[in-house]
């Protein structure tokens, strides 16, 4: 019984695991609240005081569920922001490659330029559909991410950057594309994790 508040806080930390920084902050804050409530209870220091404090606070899952939807919305905003930045940088990098290749001549296969162009168009289309229709759809985002990755890989292969010795601005733009794809992948995975957690909290509470 001595650990009733500790057990509750540990449970809360688990239920808020979709957002580790929020989980740490709320667990500390709720723990402080529960001890204060228990100490103010007429039954203190009996274990009954802790039980009543926890009971008045409500179920940990319900508490976590109130944060889950906000967490999904915040993560969706971050993800779509990263997607927009990736699209812009990819477009600029693609144009830089085309301009540079125009100067040195395209000696590579005919397939890569087509993949570069149409994968980018597909990414924009999927991104737009996702933005308008399914703001939190991980499937649309993942498809868009795959199309962008295909566009970037094809573009880099086409430009044969590392063999031909491309100028610095072309290399930097390509590096920016790769970094943003990494960031976008991280955000898509985080969004997926938050969506799954929110769904499970809503199912149970």
């Amino acid at each position, binding site marked *: 019984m001595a650990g009733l508040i500790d057990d509750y806080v540990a449970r809360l930390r688990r239920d808020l695991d979709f957002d580790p920084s929020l989980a740490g*902050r*709320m667990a500390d804050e709720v723990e*402080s*609240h529960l001890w204060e409530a228990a100490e103010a209870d007429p039954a203190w220091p009996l274990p009954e005081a802790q039980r009543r404090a926890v009971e*008045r*606070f409500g179920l940990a899952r319900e*508490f976590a569920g109130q*944060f889950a939807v*906000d967490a999904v919305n915040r993560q969706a905003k971050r993800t779509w922001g990263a997607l927009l930045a990736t699209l812009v940088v990819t477009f600029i990098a693609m144009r830089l490659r085309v301009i540079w290749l125009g100067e040195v001549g395209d000696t590579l296969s005919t397939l890569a330029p087509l993949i570069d162009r149409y994968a980018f168009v597909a990414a924009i289309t999927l991104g737009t559909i996702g933005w308008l229709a399914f703001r939190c759809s991980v499937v649309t985002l993942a498809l868009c991410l795959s199309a962008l990755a295909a566009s970037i890989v094809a573009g880099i292969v086409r430009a044969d950057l590392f063999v031909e010795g491309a100028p610095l601005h072309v290399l930097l733009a390509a590096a920016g594309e790769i970094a943003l794809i990494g960031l976008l992948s991280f955000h898509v995975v985080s969004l997926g994790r938050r969506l799954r957690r929110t769904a499970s909290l809503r199912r149970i509470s």
Partner: protein
Amino acid sequence: MLKGHLDAIVLAALEGGPAHGYAIIEAIKRRSGSTFDLPEGTVYPALHRLEQAGLLASTWMTPPSGRKRRVYSLTRSGTAALADRRRAWSRFSQAVETLLKGGHTWPA
């Protein structure tokens, strides 16, 4: 009905000065004559939401005699938001009161 006004109630509870979550809940209970005996877990999401919106600021403090607490205070935007919500509530409550008073008849 209370849920829709929880943000304004929390802002109003902090008008008197900074306070931590437990004190805010107690103040709401006391000032409403125990009419608003909120489930305690509902206030923290509101505090967090208001802080995210820039209407509240918070910081950890440890009083000399006690446990570490996160203390919330109204920001300048929070004070302005509270004034807006007061005006909106005043209009709304006047309208509802007029409607509920009754005694009106339809024109013949």
